[in-house]
């Protein structure tokens, strides 16, 4: 694999597996790795030293935690992977929170995902949206109930 990356191949592969635990595929939606959320994080930590340290330590912790149970993370079944991640979520909430945050950031800015959830992949501008004016007919009743501002 040829990547300009901070992560080793093993760390990168682990991050990919972890991403798919956070957002797995279902019948309509892709798994996180299919829209490259792990690649997004890899790029992000290259440019942000504080996040880099947090993620490098966090990924190492996932490895270590898995290892203590006698298996590597990639050799675990889904239940054990989830259990390992819940352990990290409790013991290192700063890292885990950022991991989830950045995975969601990557996933929900992916054009493929935005189309599938019904939002569409276009950014808000320049097209904008058509918005119906809505039903204002009940305001007559609001008005007829009379003044509610307090005369001073």
């Amino acid at each position, binding site marked *: 694999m040829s990547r300009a990356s901070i992560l080793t191949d093993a760390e990168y592969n682990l991050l990919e597996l972890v991403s798919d635990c956070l957002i797995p595929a279902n019948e309509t939606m892709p798994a996180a790795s299919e829209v490259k959320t792990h690649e997004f994080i890899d790029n992000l930590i290259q440019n942000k030293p504080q996040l880099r340290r947090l993620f490098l330590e966090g990924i190492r912790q996932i490895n270590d935690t898995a290892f203590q149970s006698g298996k590597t993370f990639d050799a675990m079944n889904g239940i054990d992977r989830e259990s390992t991640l819940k352990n990290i979520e409790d013991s290192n909430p700063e890292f885990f929170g950022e991991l989830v*945050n950045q995975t969601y*950031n990557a996933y*929900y800015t992916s054009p493929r995902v935005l189309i599938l959830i019904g939002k569409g992949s276009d950014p808000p501008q*320049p097209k904008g949206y058509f918005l119906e*004016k*809505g039903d204002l007919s009940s305001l007559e009743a609001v008005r007829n109930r009379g003044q*509610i501002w307090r005369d001073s």
Partner: protein
Amino acid sequence: MQSQPADVLVIGSGASGAAFSWSLAKAGFDVVCLEQGKWLNPQEDYATTKTDWELHRQTDFNPNPNVRDNISDYPVNNSDSPIAPLMYNAVGGSTIHWSAHFPRLKPSDFKVRTLDDVADDWPITYQELEPYFDLNDRHMGVAGLIGDPAYPPKSPRQTPPVGLGKLGNTITKGFDKLGWHWWPSDSAINTTTYDGRAACNNCGPCDLGCTIKAKASTDVTYWPKAISFGAKLVTGARVREITVNPKGLAKGAVYYDKYGNTCEQEAKVVILACNGIGTPRILLNSTSPSFPNGLANSSGLVGKNLMFHPYAAVTGVFDEDLEGHKGPVPLNIMSSQFYETDLTRGFVRGYAYQVTRSSSPVSQARGGYTNTYMDWGSDHHAKFKDSFNKTVTIAIIGEDLPELNNTVTLDPNITDQDGIPAPKISYRLSDNSRKMLDHGIATATQVMEAAGAHQVASDPLLKEAGWHLMGTTKMGPDENNSVVNKFGRSHDVKNLFVIDGSIFVTAGAVNPTSTIQALALYIADYVKNNSRDILDKS
């Protein structure tokens, strides 16, 4: 570096500074405005045309200056406050990222001592401000609908109200079932072309800046006009202190330019327009042998009485897709059902509701207004599908009464990039405000249920919601109990004025910008009409 002395020096180019500068420049005064931020180009600098637009909410367009950390920003120590102050620093100030809610304070807000025996009455009434509300509305362009029974009659609005969409039609049914007040609230967003600016195309994220200039930020409303009348706007100019002359009058301001050079701008009159945190910060940092406790501070009230509007939020989840991503994020419906005092509720004064559309995809995954991240793992997709575009949020905006122990002071340890002390916020939510918000959560839950929500969640106090910064140099007739008089004029320094939200005596329970700008125009007229006294004696 010394510049030519000006007639009028305005510090800050946001909501109030822009309106004031326009008024004085139009009348032929030589106006210089110092702004620490820069001009933003709506087409290039706003993220709404980019695919990663949502992520900019977490970085360079985060409303919290500590998170954003742009070069124009200064840090704010908010570690002693449950509410984080929010602001934007650029030409246009916080109108760059505001939601353009434009309700006026109500008549009772100016008379809280007389009516409810709390805080102080304002030294000015709604009726005195009304011509300035109208004048300002014409410059900002207000979408709305007259006839609201929660206000005295108003002049026609410039453009029709912001559309309700499917989401608005759903939530208004809840109000109607309960027989409670709601109304399309005034909004500084063009819904048709107005004053040379485009109509809103309902793209959504007003908080990321309006690419098409439909939203009235003052960089696209007042400033082009002010500059055409000769106002000079200096960007990248961060004011350190206001200097005084031997007569005890304001002489001008010392500031750092964008290269870090120390500069001085002299003027006959100095106007502070830096918001409820920036203004006391500069005054407290302007010490001299004549003013050892900061300028204009003989009352000791500079930086005291800080008011936010504390917000709670109630989010309802509905079965249907409400197309909640279409339209300006603020739905621009307000309810004043619980605005005026009713002591049987267990608190004095009241609150308003603002209704907000659904969260965008990343925000929804991050929990929307409930502030709880969506579950990760095998249930993630089902949970996202059950809520995305199906939520409506009612924000409860409460009237925060002034308290001496809610303060802005100078932090002894933290400075901005130029070495100017950062402001430090100390704030506690009062029992009255807590009871008010709890009442609001209970009633807003009723609205959600009446509208058909199958699930309702609430956040009792929004942290990242310190949008409105008020009270820290209050107005009043008594120089021992106020910092400025009814014209924003310092009791201590006769050619120094404050025109931003700092001068609010109380907060009301609506967004303050319309009232801030009306006050700025009112004070501008006073300065113009009394210029011989104010300018020529300096």
